[in-house]
């Protein structure tokens, strides 16, 4: 018990919780739509673009969030366009953009600082990376994402379930796709400092897939994946503190365990039913 209080007395741990919990929540909410729309790879592509932007920002001594937020938002719109157009293969385009951005980021980061520890922090996340001003902005962004998601909940369901119907009956589905892309971009930029470029997309994909093992309605999937996401995040941070393992990777491992547990439960439920 004392260990727990000791853990919470560190200011970097407090910041990690303050930034991380809202991000985990947002990622879970958006993840459901992204997974169902077959856009899961966009999340991965965006985090790589975010890495490139962060590397450039730190090379030029700019505030990282102010650079990466607009860059990633632009990339999100681009990727959405690419995956909608039938002429270009969307998945290959995403692979091109993400590996390109990753390469730019790696080169800039090594030339700029010549230090490998920084690079590893970017790629795999670091709990120490969040400064106080970052934390404040992160929380603000998360609140915006949450508010917009709740406000557009019905429309996000409709364009996820059946875009053609929404469009044909006069709902502006293009605009709501943009909103989904915008919210995803914000969530990824905020979350990638803790989770790392290579691991942030798991925060989006795992909770959605986990809850879909068991839940059968959209509302239940949304609620369940929010709970799963926050629980896994907290459990991951706490165990990484005590086991002295990297935070981002530990959170992903906890998510994996949860996924297997839900799969087993759904298997058992099917056998009994």
């Amino acid at each position, binding site marked *: 018990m004392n260990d727990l209080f000791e853990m919470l007395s560190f200011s970097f741990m407090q910041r990690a919780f303050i930034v991380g919990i809202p991000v985990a929540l947002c990622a879970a909410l958006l993840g459901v739509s992204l997974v169902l729309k077959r856009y899961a790879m966009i999340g991965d592509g965006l985090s790589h673009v975010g890495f490139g932007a962060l590397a450039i920002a730190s090379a030029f001594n700019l505030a990282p969030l102010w650079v990466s937020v607009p860059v990633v938002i632009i990339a999100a719109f681009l990727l959405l366009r690419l995956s909608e157009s039938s002429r270009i293969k969307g998945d290959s385009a995403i692979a091109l953009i993400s590996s390109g951005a990753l390469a730019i980021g790696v080169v800039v980061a090594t030339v700029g600082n010549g230090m490998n520890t920084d690079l590893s922090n970017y790629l795999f996340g670091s709990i120490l990376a969040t400064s106080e001003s970052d934390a404040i902005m992160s929380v603000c962004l998360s609140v915006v994402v949450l508010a917009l998601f709740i406000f557009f909940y*019905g429309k996000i369901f409709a364009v996820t*379930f059946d875009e053609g119907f929404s469009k*044909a009956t006069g709902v502006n589905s293009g605009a709501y796709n943009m909103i989904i892309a915008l919210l995803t971009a914000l969530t990824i930029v905020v979350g990638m400092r803790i989770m790392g470029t290579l691991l942030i997309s798991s925060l989006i994909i795992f909770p959605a897939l986990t809850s879909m093992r068991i839940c059968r*309605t959209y509302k239940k999937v949304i609620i369940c994946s929010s709970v799963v996401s926050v629980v896994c995040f907290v459990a991951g941070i706490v165990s990484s503190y005590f086991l002295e393992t990297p935070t981002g990777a530990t959170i992903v491992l906890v998510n994996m365990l949860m996924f297997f547990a839900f799969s087993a439960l759904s298997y058992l439920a099917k056998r009994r039913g």
Partner: protein
Amino acid sequence: MSIIKCDNISMSYDGVTVFDNLSFDVKSGDYLCIVGENGSGKSTLMKGLLGLKQVRDGKIVYSDGLKRNEIGYLPQQTGAQKDFPASVYEVVISGRLNKRGLKPFYSSADKESARLNMERLGIEQLKNKCYKELSGGQQQRVLLARALCATSKLLILDEPVTGLDPIAASEMYDIISRLNKENGITVIMVSHDIVAAVDHADHILHLSNKEVFFGTTGDYTHSELGSRFLYHNCHCEGCERHSRYHHDSSHIHKYTNRAEVQRGE
């Protein structure tokens, strides 16, 4: 009063023209079936009517005060929906979104409309069931209820019975006819089931690569295009003539005769 008027429209698909100078109009209360072979442009025309695709030439006029958000649409199911976690109620009520504008959440009028339309299609006991666990016929009813939430004027249906067993298909046709006759909803249906189309619709638009028929179902059954696809026992002068033409296989005999002649030598 026509509700939709197509004036000399031409549309293309991937740069290839699928039809040119097509004109027809749909009056309020009509039941129009659009039939035709694969690739004749049925789906392209429907996308044009729905505003999902631009017409290349000519124009589609919506009159009688029909607004974009007063069209109900029953699409063909996509693969993504087959494993989508959603309850029947969530799907049905999402048809009301086009009336909400930017306002969030659903009002009690929306909920009432969803309940009414589920009742109309006999699916109110499925309300909390998971959409993907329903049978094909039940899923189509759910999507039709959603379309009814979006409109009380015009329904556009894309191959509504594809993949349904014969009983579910005939139930689906009955429901659509009832909505048209009893509730006065204008129906435009794309189908490749010409026999059922003639049974239920009162107007037929037959798209074919060479010719186009548009008119009432009665005229269609006696037309050249119609009699080619319908097996019926009408012996009126026109049908007899068409039938002689369709069964005329002299060009085949010519070749077989020549083969015999050659063998004889």
